[in-house]
């Protein structure tokens, strides 16, 4: 009789301790995994923010000694407290510039700063899906340069290049040929001559 309750008592205490330990370890692991995930995520963004790394190293310390019931909950709070301000702050502050282009950075046309773009007559009544394309079409009713379009749309040049390239692919605008120094030496010299006489007439 006496052994029975003892055993059960041992068992009880054992299972309870296991339970507690298991809980602590389990959540400890969970915490670690979450931390690691958080770190990888950070890496993907490619923008290590100096100020935010220290909290992570501090947080990994309380996770070290398992068994204390208070630690897991405290850790969870720390993780969530860390995670909460990060995303809203990044997303509400502004839209990342290349989000408009779906992350693409390449243009299909050689678009220099001074390359002229004009809206195709045939496409004047077209209704583009993307608001940026509409803006480009409005801007380019008279020929405008890539730099002017970027300034009008208030986007970085790289973003403007992709948007213009898409608009050209969709047949909305024409990209005029740009005379650069590398190709066609004669053309470049002729361009300089024209610029010179144009300046003299000014």
């Amino acid at each position, binding site marked *: 009789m006496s052994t029975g309750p003892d055993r059960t008592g041992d068992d009880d205490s054992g299972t309870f301790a296991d339970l507690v330990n298991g809980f602590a370890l389990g959540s400890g692991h969970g915490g670690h995994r979450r931390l690691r995930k958080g770190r990888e995520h950070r890496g993907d963004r*490619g*923008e290590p*923010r*100096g*100020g935010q790394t220290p909290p992570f190293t501090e947080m990994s310390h309380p996770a070290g000694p398992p068994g204390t019931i208070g630690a897991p909950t405290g850790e969870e709070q720390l993780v969530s407290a860390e995670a909460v301000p990060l995303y809203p*702050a*990044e997303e509400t*502050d*502004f839209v*990342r*510039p290349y989000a408009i282009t779906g992350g693409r950075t390449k243009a299909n046309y050689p678009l*220099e*700063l*001074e*390359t*002229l773009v*004009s809206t*195709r*007559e*045939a*496409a004047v009544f*077209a209704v583009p899906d993307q608001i940026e394309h509409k803006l480009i079409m409005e801007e380019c009713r008279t*020929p405008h*340069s890539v*730099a*002017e379009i*970027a*300034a*009008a749309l*208030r*986007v*970085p*040049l*790289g973003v403007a290049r992709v948007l213009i390239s898409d608009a050209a692919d969709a*047949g909305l605008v*024409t990209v*005029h*040929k*740009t*005379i*650069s*120094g*590398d190709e066609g*030496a004669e053309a*470049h*010299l002729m*361009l*300089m*001559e*024209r*610029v*010179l006489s*144009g*300046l*003299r*007439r*000014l």
Partner: protein
Amino acid sequence: MDSVGFKAPREAAPKTMTSAKIVVAGGFGAGKTTFVGSVSEIVPLTTEAMMTDASTGIDDLEATPNKATTTVAMDFGRVSLDEDLILYLFGTPGQQRFWFMWDDLVRGAIGAVVLADTRRLADSFAPVDFFEDRGLPYIVGVNTFDGVLQHDLQDVREALSIDPSIPIVRCDARDKESTKQTLITLVEYAMRQWIALRSPNSAAEGPVTTS
């Protein structure tokens, strides 16, 4: 777009337009924007650029850690020279860290005007080095603030240690006529250099040789 056939055939191709580009460089406050604005038919516009890791530790972003773009002072203006010819003047970004934009700027450019402020001549070293390195024809315009030329042009040439063949002119960035003359000097020089470089027997004339 399929409806084109239904309409009377429009002009097959729109009139081809041509553009040219001249770079205006110089240190902060050398008068780049004034120079561009004096001939431009539009108020000089500004493009933005991405601010990336390259600016970490350079830009003071303590107050705005989530700001990822900054307005770059790359002003540019536009001059219609003919019905189908537009000249763009691009001022270089003042901040050195936007060097990556300089590649875009010089590609295909006719040449560059380096505006020098004789009170801060050292600011002209970086643009001069860059254009010499890229083989872009450039001239130096000494901006005469308040119409006063502080230094002899020859002294400026020596201070910048540039080749005697490279024109140095005095200019008043506020004055359209002066800016026009400076640009004419640049284009004439660029053409001379272009021809000299491409004619087989006069390679020695080429002033590009950087010693």
